[in-house]
């Protein structure tokens, strides 16, 4: 039976790992992901997850272990954050290049230096080009559900790509809230045992990830992009099927629209701050402002974004990252790229919540005020929200 409980986001992820019946877990603890490691380790020790838990000395090794295990056809899980993701970086390309359906939860956290254990999304945004699917979640429930969906997406025969589930560190991992833990039988119906297309087998030897000479490398990279393109419809399908079994879904799986229909101003964002933005939009009591939450950042659902933003005169992208040197948020620059040639909406970049700075109701109100001002006058394109100037 599905059951309601109240739990930390980390625990919700561990429940998903248990329900997904994974075979191999390898992870190295790092704040704010630590409880995911602890909870899954305990579940394995207690026999609640029948998996091999490989203790490793670093995140580079954690990723190496799940890559190797996945290569043998095992369903695998790992989790990390920030510096840990950075240390894995080399192996992230290996997982995607070998087309291995590894699932990882990244508890989004700022990067050093200066050291910050707190939340922003610079870590996963800086890893946007590693060839992983990236799904950003808003709630603990969505973290659990998306971890389950991630296996379906990653293991789909036409996709075969690793998936990174991105959840805001502390803001979700360390927050308790009600979560419905799905029924095991229903999960096994939605997510049956993994049947790999091909795997390392001593009886039928093959090589994974050998050298590619210039005559094939480009084609292999193009195939990764094709798989990403194909993943778009798979993500939608999996979201629909999840909804059919569990009665919950998240927009169309790629994006979630909130009051965008008649909106002149549309805020675009990733992750948990969407909840705060929804409250601020609702308190207005009009239909002038809407929200587009991008759940799938990779693949980036260009058509969905274009369709959702079509009617907006001003688009304000709030994000917890900045591309230093470009001088704006990475998502803002991508939204601008997507909207190029379709309409003349103003696209503003709002850099907020870096290194754990609270994005308050007033922060969001301020962003919306700036966007409304942009309806009738010129405003700066880039805004550092709540920046102290003294």
């Amino acid at each position, binding site marked *: 039976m599905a059951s309601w409980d*109240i739990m930390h986001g980390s625990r919700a992820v561990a429940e998903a790992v248990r329900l997904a019946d994974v075979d191999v877990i390898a992870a190295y603890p790092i704040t704010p992901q630590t409880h995911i490691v602890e909870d899954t380790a305990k579940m394995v020790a207690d026999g609640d997850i029948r998996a091999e838990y490989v203790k490793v000395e670093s995140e580079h090794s954690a990723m190496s272990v799940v890559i190797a295990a996945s290569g043998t056809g095992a369903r695998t899980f790992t989790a990390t954050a920030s510096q840990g993701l950075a240390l894995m970086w080399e192996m992230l390309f290996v997982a995607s290049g070998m087309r291995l359906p590894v699932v990882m939860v990244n508890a989004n956290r700022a990067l050093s230096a200066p050291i910050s*254990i*707190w*939340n922003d999304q610079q870590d996963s945004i800086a890893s946007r080009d590693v060839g992983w699917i990236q799904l950003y979640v808003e709630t603990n429930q969505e973290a659990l559900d998306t971890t389950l969906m991630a296996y379906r997406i990653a293991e789909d025969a036409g996709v075969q790509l690793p998936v990174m589930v991105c959840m*805001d560190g*502390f*803001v979700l991992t*360390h*927050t*308790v*809230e*009600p979560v419905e833990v799905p029924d095991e039988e229903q999960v096994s119906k939605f997510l049956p045992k993994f049947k790999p297309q091909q795997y390392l087998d001593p009886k039928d030897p093959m090589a994974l990830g050998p050298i590619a000479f210039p005559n094939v490398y480009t084609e292999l990279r193009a195939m990764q992009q094709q798989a990403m393109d194909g993943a778009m419809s798979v993500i939608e399908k999996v979201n629909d099927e999840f909804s059919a079994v569990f009665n919950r879904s998240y927009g169309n799986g790629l994006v979630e629209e909130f009051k965008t229909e008649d909106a002149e101003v549309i805020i675009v964002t990733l992750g*948990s*701050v969407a*909840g*705060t933005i*929804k*409250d601020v939009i609702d308190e207005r009591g009009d239909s002038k402002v809407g929200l587009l939450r991008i759940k799938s950042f990779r693949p980036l659902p260009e058509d969905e974004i274009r369709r959702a933003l079509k009617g907006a005169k001003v688009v304000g992208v709030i994000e917890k990252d900045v591309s230093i040197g470009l001088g704006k948020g990475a998502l803002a620059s991508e939204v601008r790229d997507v909207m190029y040639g379709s309409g003349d909406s103003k696209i503003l970049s709002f850099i907020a919540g870096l290194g*754990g700075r*609270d*994005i*308050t*109701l007033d*922060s969001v109100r301020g962003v919306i005020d700036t966007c409304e001002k942009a309806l009738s006058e010129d405003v700066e394109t880039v805004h550092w929200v709540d920046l102290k100037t003294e």
Partner: protein
Amino acid sequence: MIEIRFHGRGGQGVVTAADLLAMSAFYDEKYCQAFPSFGVERRGAPVLAFARMDDKPVRRRNQVARPDYVLVQDSTLLDVIDVSSGLKEGGTVIINTSKNASEIELASDATLYTVDGTKIALDVLGRPIVNTVMLGIFSGITGEVSIDGVKKAVEKRFSGKLQEKNLRAVEIAFEKAGEVK
């Protein structure tokens, strides 16, 4: 939506108090949320934690800046910070102290209750950890969560002797709150 801010010091179980309050609301069949202020919590350093409860899902993720209730576990904080900062009009502050409410001055004209929670904790738990005591007091004074909800939360979080003692502490605190009120 009801928003609560907890003040205490590292090592006093402030984060657990917020978690337990959200759990109490959950067992009262309300939507809820609790989280700490995510500091690098050192023993003795001022610590904040937050809780929210509502009849509909709690969506916002910002720290509680405009609380309906403030719970202060350690009265030595009153010399250091303005615990009533941002309190909503008609808001309530509950302080764990042996002093009377009339002996305490707050920066705002909040409704103020004082309870000697440390005494209850020392009597029942044998340790000056007041987080569960504060929840019994909160339930007794405000009625925002039921005493049954608080007890269920304590049962879920603690086991064995610790559970037994904390349940007793909660009950005594709940009754004491009745007197204060």
